[in-house]
Each structure stands twice: as C-alpha cells, then as structure tokens.
C-alpha cells in the first residue's frame, strides 16, 4: 500500500512542473529602478528584485510598505522589561525576601540594570527572529536558482522576478509587460519535479550530533538520579572550598592571629543594643552603676577557689545559701528589680510561657514547679553527690522574689542552674516568668481574692 501511494505522489509531482513565475534580467541598477517603478505602477503585488548590492532608492521604486518589525521589537522589548520587573519583584520581595544592606526588598534603582538588559535582549531577539520570519528565512533553496542567468545576480546582473501567485499575473500578458521594460532577457522558472533531498553526509552528520546531544542529556539525567561512592567533581573549586573564618581558630590573615574579630571600639553588634529597653532586657528598672552585677549568678559557695570545699559540699547545705553573709546575694537583693511585666500580659504570652516552661524548665523543676522534675528524681535515686535539688517555687522565699529577679535568674542561672539567656529569647523568658507566677498562684492563694462562685466550684471538686 505504502509504496503505491509514494509512487503515485512521485509520478504526480514529476508529471506537472508548475510555472512559478517570470524572471527579467537587467544589466545596470538604474534600469532596474526604472523597471521597478513601472512594475509598481502596473499594480503587481507579489514580485521582487534581486541585486548584487544594496541599491539606494529601490525601496521607494518598488513601493515597499513600512515593515511592522519596529512594533515587534517594541513589543518584545516591553515584554522583556515587564518580565524583568515582575521576576525581580517576585524573587526579591515575595518568594525569598532577603534584606541586603538595609535596602527595601524591592526598589526601582536596583531593578534598572536587569530590566534594561532583559528589555534589550528580548528586543534583539525580536529584531533578529522577526527579521528572519518576515523575510521567510532561512530559505536554503529557491527554484529560481536553477536559472543559469540568475547565477550572475551576485556579480553584475539585476533581476526582477514576478510571482505567478500574483492576482494580476498571466503568463502571456506579464511576459509582454516585462519585455516592454527593455530587459536583456526574460525567462520562466518552474517548480521542481522532485523534492530536493538533503545530502547524505549532512543527514548523517546531523543525526550524529543529535545522538551525541541526547547522550549528554541522558548522562546528566543518569548522574542526577543515582548515587555514587566517588567524591563529586568540584568545577568551581574556590567557591566550594573557601578559606572561611571560624570562631576559636587561628589564622594568619590578621596580625593578632584570631579568627573571631573583636568588636570595633565604639560599635555595638547588630541586635545587641539593649539600653533603650532596660526593663525588658535586664529585668531592672534602671541599670546600676556597677554593671557587672547585671550578669552575675548567685553561687552556692563563696570560697569557690578553695578546691577541697567543692568536694565536701553536702547537698543539704546548698539550697539555703547564707544570704546574709554572701556579698553577691546582698548585691543582687539591692538591685532595682522590676515588679511589673515590661511586656503586655496576654493569653498568648501565657500559652507561650507554658510551652517554653515545659521544654526548658520542667525536666528539673517539675511540671508543677515543686522541684521534682524527672532529672531531679533520677539524680536523687542515684544519690548523686554533686546534684543540687532545685528549689521549689512554692517556698516563702521564692514567692517573695520580684519578677525581675526571676527573669535575671533564668538569664544568668543560679547555683548549679546554668544560664538560659543564650537559648531563650527575652520575650520567651518573660513568658516563662509569667507562667511561673501562675504556677505559684495555683498552689497557694488567699481565699479573699477569689470570688464566691470560684470558692463554690473548689468545694465541689472536693
């Protein structure tokens, strides 16, 4: 079946070569321009001129209309600019907001270079591809090439070609008309009887290139979906292995040999300026003269330098530190602790405090704050000599502590309790303090401060 169809098509193509048009040959550009004017005035639409070099004035002589290419270019340029602005807005301000040197997330000056470049790029694409498209290029072959005379078009001959598809075209009339233009010669050109074939070597070469490109793509796809014990190839070495500086290391980049750089004199690290909200950051109404006390923690033994004393410590002694004798405790007691929360007290803060308390505090202090957390219970069971049982929140001493002092204790630690300032944010520390006060209230409350309804409720529970 297939073969018969092919054959019939071939024979059909071979049988009737079609007249494609007429070709008139001139030997100088002025004659061509004169002829072009006449063809233009005769009202032909589908025709063209062919010259070895650009001829000034041929556009007017042929009556060529303005191309729409500028509008294509303008449209492409505008598209590029829109894409660039939209892309930068989406990337910088929406998808991955990232502050760079304090600039707004999206700002016009920063977008100008890329907008400019993408506009130019797409405009250039538009100009190039639009030109190719409007000129119906690339056109590797034209039946007109079969004309022997036409070969001189790249040297010294000038041609007018009339397309047979033109509405005004008729073989005889148009032929007569062309002859009236005083050409050297007029000839017909016909469609091909068989379709031109690509050279075999070209087909082979192109298929080879295609296969190699597919192989490359396949290779990339393969390595991206499989694992390998071999170390990866580092193409950009100095980006993958940067001589980065780390804290606690030495370097010879700086004369003092330290990798971590000391703060510059008169500067404050970002986020470390706390003096504008002292109650919030320190739990103090104002900073005392001796600022060192702000960060000290109450120790269980004043004679800490005495090594033997540490060993001898009995757990029972520790919780009740001799406050009267201890100068640190005395100092801390005298500080101007805040008694009101420096943050708004809300349900949300309470919930946050409960959550943080259970994460950071309850392991030692217990869920209810009696000092019976799981870690404590286990340490007690193992009779660990160095373990200091955390104080219950419900003793008279702790209940009397101002909230600023509680905040300070969380921040800097006390006795064996480590400082939590570096792990829990100030906001969260205040949330924990709030929850702690609630715990205290839940354990011991004055009957006068609760309403009758609540009292009745409590009685009912019993």
């Amino acid at each position, binding site marked *: 079946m297939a073969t018969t169809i092919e054959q019939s098509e071939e024979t059909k193509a071979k049988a009737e070569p079609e007249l494609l048009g007429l070709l008139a040959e001139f030997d100088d550009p002025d004659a061509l321009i004169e002829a072009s004017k006449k063809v233009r005035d005769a009202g032909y639409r589908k025709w063209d001129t062919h010259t070895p070099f*650009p001829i*000034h*004035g041929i556009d007017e002589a042929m009556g060529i209309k303005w191309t729409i290419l500028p509008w294509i270019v303008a449209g492409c340029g505008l598209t590029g600019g829109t894409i660039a602005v939209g892309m930068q807005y989406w990337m910088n301000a929406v998808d991955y907001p990232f502050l760079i*040197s*304090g*600039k707004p997330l999206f700002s016009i*000056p*920063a977008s*100008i*270079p890329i907008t400019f470049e993408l506009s130019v790029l797409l405009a250039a694409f538009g100009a190039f591809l639009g030109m190719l498209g409007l000129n119906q290029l690339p056109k590797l072959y034209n039946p007109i090439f079969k004309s022997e005379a036409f070969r001189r078009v790249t040297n010294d001959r000038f041609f007018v070609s009339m397309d047979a598809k033109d509405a005004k075209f008729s073989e005889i009339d148009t032929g007569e008309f062309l002859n009236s233009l005083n050409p050297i010669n007029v000839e017909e050109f016909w469609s091909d009887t068989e379709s031109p074939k690509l050279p075999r070597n070209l087909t082979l070469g192109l298929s080879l290139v295609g296969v190699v490109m597919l192989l490359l793509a396949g290779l990339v796809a393969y390595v991206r979906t499989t694992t390998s014990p071999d170390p990866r190839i580092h193409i950009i070495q100095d980006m993958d292995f940067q001589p980065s500086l780390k804290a606690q290391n030495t370097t010879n980049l700086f004369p003092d040999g330290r990798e971590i750089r000391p703060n510059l004199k008169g500067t404050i690290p970002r986020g470390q300026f706390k003096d504008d909200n002292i109650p919030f950051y320190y739990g103090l109404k104002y900073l005392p003269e001796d600022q060192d006390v702000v960060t000290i923690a109450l120790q269980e033994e004043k004679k800490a330098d005495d090594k033997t004393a540490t060993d001898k410590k009995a757990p029972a002694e520790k919780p009740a530190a001799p406050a009267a004798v201890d100068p640190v405790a005395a100092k801390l007691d005298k500080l101007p602790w805040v008694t009101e929360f420096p943050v708004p007290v809300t349900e949300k803060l309470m919930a946050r405090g409960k959550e943080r308390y259970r994460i950071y505090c309850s392991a030692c202090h217990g869920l209810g704050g009696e000092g019976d957390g799981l870690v404590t219970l286990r340490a007690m069971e193992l009779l660990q000599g160095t373990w200091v049982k955390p104080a219950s929140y419900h003793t008279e001493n702790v209940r009397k502590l101002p909230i600023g002092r509680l905040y300070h204790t969380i921040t800097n630690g006390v006795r064996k309790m480590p400082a939590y300032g570096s792990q829990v944010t100030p906001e969260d520390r205040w949330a924990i303090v709030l929850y702690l006060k609630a715990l205290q209230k839940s354990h011991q409350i004055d009957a006068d401060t609760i309403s009758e309804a609540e009292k009745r409720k409590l009685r009912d529970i019993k």
Partner: protein
Amino acid sequence: MQTSSDTNNKVSVQTLAELGPLPMKVALGCSVLLPVAFVLGFLMDNGTELFAFSYLQSTFFFLSISLGALFFVLIQQLTRAGWSVVLRRISEFISMGVIPLAVLVLPIVLVTLSGSDILYQWASSKNVAGDHLLQAKAPYLNSGFFALRYVIYFGSWIFLARFFLNKSVAQDENGDPELTLLMERRSGPALLLYAFTISFAAIDFIMSLDAHWFSTIFGVYYFAAGLVGFFSTLAITLIYLRSKGLLQEPINVEHLHDVGKLLFAFNCFWAYIAISQYLLIWYANIPEETVFFLHRQEHGWGIISLILVIGHFAIPFVFFMSRWMKRNPKTLFFWAAYLLVMNWIDIFWLVMPNVKSGSGDFLGVSFAMILMNICCTVGVGGIYVAGLLKFAGQKSVMPVRDPRLEESLKFHNI
C-alpha cells in the same frame, strides 16, 4: 582622494553674512540682559550669590555646547567620516565659542584668585583652616593652581578649535587634500587632550562647588550633557539656516536624520551615565556620597530631579525614537529645542543647588533664582552667539573643497 573639479563648479560659496545684520543685532541686544542680571543681583535677597552661580551656570551651559562641537569635529576627522562634511563647518564655528567663553569665564577665575568663597569654599583660606577635608585637598584645590588650569584648559580648547577651523578654511582656498590628512593625523592626540581637559574642567569648575563630594564619572557626565546640547544646537542651526536659504541644497533630510539619530543616541548616553552615577551611589549608600542626591531631593530640587528623569530621558526616549520624528524638520526642530532646554535644566541642576545664602543656608528653587538664571543665560548667550557670528564672518558655511564633499552630498540613509 582627488578633489573633483566639477564639485568646485557645482557648489557655490555661501557665508553667514547672507543672513544680514539682524542675527548680530538680536545677539547683541540679548547680551544687554547680562548687566541687567548683574543689577538684579543687588536688588534681590542673596542676589550676589544667585548672580555668581547663575553666571557660572550660563557660561558652562554654553561651554558644554562648544565643547560638544569640538568633540564632533575631532571625531569626524578621526573616523574619516564622509557623510558629515557638509555640516562640519557649522560645527567648527560653534566650537569657536570657546574664545568668547574664555573671556566670560575669566571673572570667575579672578574672583576665586582674590580669595572670595562666594563660589568655591576652598578658595578662602579661612574655610580651609577649619576643614580637614579641604586641607587634604588643598594641594590640588587652591586658587593659584586653579587659575593655571583655567589657562591650560581654555588654551587647549582655543588651540584645537582654531587649528581645525583654520586648516579647514585654508582648504577652501587651495583644495589641498594633504590638509585633510594632516587634520586626521592630529585628531587622535587632540582627542586625548580634549578628554583630559574636559574631565578636569568639569571637576574643577562644577564638581568642586561642593568640595567635599566627589564622583569619578563627573567629567563624563558633563561631556554627555554637552553632546546633547551640541546636537540640539546643530539641528536647530541647520534647520534655521535652511529656512533662510543657506545650505539648502547640500544638506538634505538624510543629514538631518543622522543629526537626529546622534542627538537621540547621546541623549540615551547621557541617561546611561546619569544612572551609572546614581546607581553606584545609591547602592553603596555612603553618607559622604549620597549627600549629593539627598540635597537634590530637598528644597524643591526633587521636582527638578524628576523633570530630568522623565523630561530629559523618558519622554524623548519614547517619542523621539521614531524615524519620522527625525526626518521631519519641524519635529526635529521641536525635539532639538526641547532637549536644549533640558540640557539647560541639567546644568542648572548641577550648579544651582550649591547656592548658599550669606548666612550659609542652602537656597531652594525660587522664582527669583530662575529669573536670574534666564537673564544670565540670555545675556551670556547673546555675547556667545555674537562671538560665533563674528568668527564665522566671511568664511564659507561648508568646506567647499573637502575631498569627501561629494560623498557627503550624496549621502543616503538606507
């Protein structure tokens, strides 16, 4: 490179004298406004300061045009351009404006030499003593060296302008193609000299008004502004001359189209340089640099800055791009005049925000300031144009025996 004999016969020699005495009279009449502005200076509040700065603005506005012309003449010689021969002589005339301007700028130099800080803070030893930065810059920014540089700059420009005009005029007489070769050989070194002198002149006379601030692209900015001014002036001049019957045959719409293209291109170049300067300063955000633009957003200068962004770049970019706009003498004239005004506003924007009142406060944009500037510009412009007409005198308005004249006459855009 043979002078074709029929060219000599075809082209008739025309001179600007054919315009009659009217242009000269109008120019001299306009120059009366300069003394008027001077008198206004005594009547207005802060009038002396306003006059000094307006005078600097006006002279450097016209200087930018003449320097643009000089650049155009040099680059045409350097590239051996054929198309531009018919309009090169007019450019050579415009470049001669550096001679009247050298005289007009002289008072600025003399005032600075006298140690007055009315324009330049660094000129007064009292200011320098109290200012560490000015002390550090004193080896360069001192009035003696400033005066010396003035001599070098204007000396170089006058030399170049005269050389290229005289050689070209000499060729009108003898038609010697060797002269063209000579000018081509000299144009390379001349451009180097030109590049250095215009950059440093912009730095010395305009940038040092605010001696604390600096921008390494400033010289190029002034150069770009000058080219916009020059091509506008050239287009206006050519269309005016053609309407008066001069150069009507040799200069056709093809040449006007190319002048329009260059005007459009260098307007974009100006915008490119301006945004380059702005973008780097905006990005680095260093207070000592941003002060320039911050100051130009306050005291009413913000509107002038916006006028430059939208009026100097955006509007012409959209509407002047079309080929039709450049090939129609009427629309070309409109856009050239429009961009010349924009160039004037640009120099205004560079110079005038530095005006301080007697008590040291910056002055905002005011009607008095604009009035003073317009008076000064018209006055200086009158002297400038009168000078140009004087130099043009009996010289032909076209290099009638240039070896590339025929190429230029037959020039055709595709």
